[in-house]
């Protein structure tokens, strides 16, 4: 492996447009970086912000949300709900100090395999430039608690002891 940082990105796709766009990218042998791992939902309207937060809190460096273009949702209008949730989530994440490039929304129709691949490449580059998110992983379903020493060690790396003993 080279030394360049390889981000891990979780991508959410809808069953009807963007997942099929990913299929089409495959069928057409369009190349894109292997950093994105896709999850299929029935619709971008299924995207619960919890999923995004969970991914970021568990080691993903970024999240890509995709869906049908506005007005072309197979469930008529549910991607607008995804859009609204995304915009509010983005504001919330900004308040948590997470860069906007780390959670992006991309519309891709079933015919836009090449476009989806381009967007993935673009997002990977943007996230690579930002560096790892490194969100200290929290207690998860497998049960390793996040101890206060660990939390402390996170800051020790970055802040000098002088800060507290000034």
């Amino acid at each position, binding site marked *: 492996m080279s030394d360049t940082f390889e981000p891990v990105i979780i991508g959410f796709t809808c069953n009807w447009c963007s997942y099929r766009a990913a299929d089409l990218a495959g069928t057409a042998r369009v190349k894109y970086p292997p950093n994105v791992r896709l999850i299929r939902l029935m619709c971008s309207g*299924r995207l619960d912000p919890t999923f995004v937060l969970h991914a970021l809190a568990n080691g993903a460096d970024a999240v890509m949300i995709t869906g049908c273009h506005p007005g072309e949702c197979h469930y008529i209008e549910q991607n607008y709900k995804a859009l609204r949730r995304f915009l509010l989530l983005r504001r919330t994440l900004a308040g948590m100090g997470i860069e906007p490039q780390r959670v992006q929304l991309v519309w891709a129709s079933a015919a836009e395999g090449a476009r989806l691949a381009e967007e993935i490449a673009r997002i990977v580059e943007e996230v690579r430039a930002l560096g790892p998110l490194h969100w200290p992983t929290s207690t998860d379903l497998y049960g390793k608690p996040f101890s206060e020493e660990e939390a402390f060690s996170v800051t020790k790396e970055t802040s000098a002891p002088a800060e507290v003993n000034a």
Partner: protein
Amino acid sequence: MSNRFIPLEPMQPRERIGVYVCHCGSNIAGTVDVAEVRDWAEKRLAHRGVVVARDYKFMCSSLGQELIAKDIKEQGLTRVVVAACSPHLHEQTFRKACQMAGLNPYLCELVSIREQVSWVHTDKHAATDKAKAILSGGVERVMRHTPLEPLHVPIHPATLVVGGGIAGIQAALEIADAGFPVYLVEREPSIGGHMAQFDKTFPTLDCAACILTPRMVSAGNHPNITLLTWSEVTRVDGYVGNFTVTIRKKARYVKEELCTGCGVCQEKCPKRVVDEQYEAGLGFRKACYIPFPQAVPKYPVIDTENCVFFAKGTCKACQKFCPTNAIDYDQKDEYLSVQVGNIILATGYDLFDARRVSQYGYGRLANVFTSLEFERLSNSAGPTNGNIVLRDGVTTPKTVGIIHCVGSRDRNFNNYCSAICCMQSLKFAHLVKERTGATVYNFYIDIRTTAKAYDEFYQRVLEEGTLFVRGKVAEVTDAARKPGEEGKIIIQVEDTLVGKQRRIPVDMVILANGLEPRRDAKEVAKIFGISCSADGWLIEKHPKLDPVATMTEGIYIAGCATGPKDIPSTVAQGAAAAASVLGRIQQGEIALEPVRASVLEERCSGCRICNNLCPFNAITFHEDRMVTSINAALCQGCGTCVAACPAGAITGTAFSNEQIIGQIEGLLMRNLETAPVGAGQA
């Protein structure tokens, strides 16, 4: 309380999972180290329940499927993960294989390592790693699956056909002939649609009325068809197999049971108005009118906006002269409710409004006509009895310019090709030539004559001496510059084959304006719970493989409602939609995918956040209990309400929070962290 300290899960996994990695010949194995993925799954995911992992050349082959079946039986597998191609290709295959072996088909998960890995990546190492992650996500997801059963819904034998154009007529006749009842709803006073306005049909030049009228009459007389003209669907409740449709039957002010269609009322009516509908604004009709002589049904309609009686309270000429006392000024709109099992939408198209291309002068320059105006002009039953004349009503044009692609293939208006205009323009050229001997110019971008006998017709028109100028017309103007241009309409165009600007003075311009979705297509789509593309065409379930079905079970679409089409394709779609419906009716019941949302009532507090989120009207609020519920048969499984519920009271099958969060953790390899001590990172 979410990051609650949870003790380690018991080391004994709950499920027995089989993992199958497909080579797909060299399609996957060429880029992904399949054996490594298999070994990795066997070792590193054993603590998550993977008891067997295999790789095989072609998992989808019958031998591959047998491999799975054998393991289910012999190893007692309770879950199956196949890492192969896209679920859109083979999900059903592997589900069936599991079902044959006695495992609930929904306990099988297919993850794509071909479309998402081997075909799009080149680095073998990175691709293998990604394949592992995807497989790991699948394992975490599948262990949280629950056994599901498809929903079975009975099908009501009646069908609703909306739109009485040729597509709707064809669909209605096919179903009625097969012996099942049909309600054919048309919002105009007569069925027939656009085709009834045409003169000749390309490329055979048969008379539109001659081929359409017999069909209209059959539809009107058919014992299985209930014809509801001057009617509109206002509401659709229910779901596939069991729709309740509310239809507004607008008041005709004519008692249909008494009317003989003699037409005296129309004759005696003193009020003459421009007929914007049937005559495309080029002719007149009365306020009490039968839209055209061959109309089906033959009953007239009183247009209350223009009727003298409705405006001033006097006149009543129609009533006085009606021999059967059929005129009833007190008639009111009626609302009917019908039960149907399936619905076919054949709502047709609107013509592009040529006024929008203001540089072509339609509406300002008298002798610029639209295609539909020309259809009426050339129709022997039209306002000029088929004489092709200028708007003064007498002068025969000596030179005619036909402009293609008006509003189509144009970034300012519609990007799409309207499909029929080339052939229609060629037909116009032929008719003008034949009937007036005028010089005819066609201004085109490309000539598209792709169906049977179309290009032969183009050759024929070329041989007849019609002139073709390849270029997009810049302007149609009456501002003369040179002698010879005065009193003419000048077409300014770049002739791209010659590479020159040309000004061609003509007497008449015909704009081949394109086809657009119905102005109210979006509202119609909302009523029926289906979707429109951004420009307004109704969206088919699959553009190639399922062109007359929609995403909403039980609702079919045919004809120009889905996009521009010529008459043969329109008729074919009408018949195809009918065939799909007949198949459904014959089966008697339908199995629906069990991807559904449901409400845990004890957690629902009746906040009503979800209430207006469902475009399929599956969500109902119960005032008495102050809780919301979801109708499983109406639910299409998009999951928007599941994601929206602030109390977490709505759950979705097949895409539950647990499944998706499990998959996220699997993809991020968090599941490896409970691996036995000493096992290194992947």
